[in-house]
């Protein structure tokens, strides 16, 4: 139970936390524009999704939740792209960045809500669940803080590092959307390209980290890779003139 909860928390929280820490490195002093949008949109979106879970789940012949998640992943990517495109208007760029994190949290947050309050009934009833949540949250936040500091350090030395991180995180969302499209048979997977399970297991700590950062899959399909590379190159090109906020 404890391990499952920790893994669940890492899987769901780490992608959003890594994206947020990268955006904070970029947006720097514009927190007052980013945070209210992020908090407001996250709370509003999660309440809406939680109140309509059964309707969403029944939609599209029972694939409603997957459809919602695909839309959220695509929206996250589009918002990141727009945020970079509007970098010349810092306030709007920060708001769009906050909205991008919120749309990712709609996916991850609703998964957590499902896990904690629907499958497990009550978070506070099980000590293992509570402890697992605390451990998962602590590890996720610590990794995000260290990742933030590492990016600050490296982005100061190498200007392209921020663009690279942002592009990887954005491409990850497309990769996840493609994976869900394949899972729901709305898209052909294409041949499996390789199996790197022996090198880096998806279930290991590093596996979770790289999944959160760049959507690492030990056995990716062709479509997933094509989507990832296309999204990565698009955002890298779009963000070529980005500057780190000092």
């Amino acid at each position, binding site marked *: *139970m*404890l*391990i499952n909860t*920790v893994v669940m928390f890492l899987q769901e929280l780490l992608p959003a936390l890594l994206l947020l820490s990268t955006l904070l490195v970029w947006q720097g002093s514009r927190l007052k524009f980013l945070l209210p949008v992020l908090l407001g949109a996250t709370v509003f979106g999660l309440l809406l999704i939680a109140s309509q879970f059964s309707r969403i789940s029944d939609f599209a012949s029972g694939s409603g939740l997957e459809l919602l998640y695909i839309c959220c992943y695509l929206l996250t990517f589009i918002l990141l792209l727009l945020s970079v495109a509007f970098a010349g208007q810092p306030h709007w760029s920060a708001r769009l960045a906050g909205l991008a994190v919120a749309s990712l949290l709609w996916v991850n947050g609703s998964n957590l809500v499902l896990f904690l309050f629907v499958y497990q009934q009550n978070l506070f009833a099980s*000590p*293992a669940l509570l*402890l697992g949540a*605390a*451990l998962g949250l*602590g*590890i996720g*936040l*610590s*990794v995000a*803080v*260290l990742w933030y*500091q590492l990016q600050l350090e490296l982005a100061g030395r190498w200007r392209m590092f921020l663009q690279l991180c942002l592009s990887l995180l954005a491409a990850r969302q497309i990769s996840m959307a493609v994976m869900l499209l394949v899972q729901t048979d709305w898209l052909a997977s294409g041949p499996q390209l390789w199996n790197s399970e022996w090198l880096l297991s998806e279930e290991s*700590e590093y596996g979770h980290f790289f999944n959160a950062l760049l959507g690492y899959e030990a056995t990716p399909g062709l479509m997933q890779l094509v989507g990832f590379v296309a999204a990565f190159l698009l955002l890298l090109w779009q963000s070529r003139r980005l500057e780190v906020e000092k």
Partner: protein
Amino acid sequence: MSSIRRYLVTMLIAMLTLTSFMAALHSYRESISRADQLFDDDLQMLAASLLPSFTKVATGPELADDKLGSVVQIWRGNTLLYRSANAPAQKIQAPEGYSEQNFSGQRWRTYLQLVPAALSAQSVQSTDRMQSTDSMQSTDAATTAAQTVPLSVLVAQPLKQRQQLAEEVVLASIYPVVLSLPLQALLIWLAVSKGLSPLLKFAEQLSGKKADDLTPVQLSQVPAELSQVLGTTNQLLAKLSDAFAREKRFASDVAHELRTPLSVLQVNLHNAISQWQQAGVADPQGLMPALQDGVQRMSQLIEQIMLLNRTNPEHFKAKLQHMDLAALCREVIAELYPQILQKNQQVELCGASYVPLMADTFALRLMLVNLLGNAIKYTPADGEIKLTLATDDRLVRLTLEDSGPGIDPKEYQRVFDRFYRVGGDRHQSGQPGSGLGLAIVKEIVALHAGSLTLGPSGFASGLKITVELPQ
């Protein structure tokens, strides 16, 4: 890095949390694995301990002191020799050794020990030798059966209970790791604050220094990392102090050295002109008055430089005292009245007749002399000058308006620059000046935390200067 303390605290807490939580997770995994191993060993021992007595009863009581609710079944072929009270009546299907099976509505960890026919017979015989002769007959029958059919001993524990019991034990060791984190965070914050306290004290002392306080910074404890910075800062302060002292001496010496010969020059020039006039010597090119003007201008310039030096905030120590600005205005007007009279100008002092103020009298007199002197200088003959005093709860407002040519609004900011004169040396008024008067006024107003604004006067033309000083 906006704050060293925030950086250190967040980094240390993040690293501590990550390492301790990861260690706790690994410890949890390892402990659960060990607990499973122990439970499995327990199952095996239970099976072995039951072997000697399996023939005694067909059904028996539930195993004593077993928190897990283990079940036991002992079969010889298809004959049930023993089952615990919570065990199902039908045979539990499981492979030999350890496995996980579903029965009685839950999942179980099972251990099946198969005893070959020959071994089980020996076991039965050795057990029976210790029994009374009354049971000899039944023993013989059992021995015969044991020789042909193998014995299976199955013990099982419910997985959920096993996991719960293991988790209870293991979680107890992880709780302190999580619960102590806030305390550790607090200790980190305190330690970092303590470590940075010399730096903070150093910064406090530096920021608390007054402009003229160039004494060395003293810290009770100087860590090695800070000693270089402290030493260099104190060296700089000492150099700065020396430089200021030299500058003061230089200004004073220059004033003395220049004033005296200039005064002598002025007197000699005046005497020379008088003697030439008495002797009837002509000055066809009019060089003497020009020379006299030049000497007078140089003399004024030196006076102004001296005053500017004295009113510099870095040197000037304001001696604030209660004073009456209206009285001071009257005094300055009286002092400059000969010049006003000379140009036949009209001077008017309006507003309150008593304006109390906390200010430096010398500095304010200098300010008024400069302001009124400028007004007299640049206002043409028969022009008007108006001084107005007003006061409220917080401010004293002095307004000086003249009917002179005024200043282009574009020049308002620049006229306060040192040595700046509107129109440069070819000033259209033709009046001699150093370009320092308004710079001195600006510094005096700044010394009193006041404000200074320029604008068009209420006359047909001219300048209005408004000075606001806090009471």
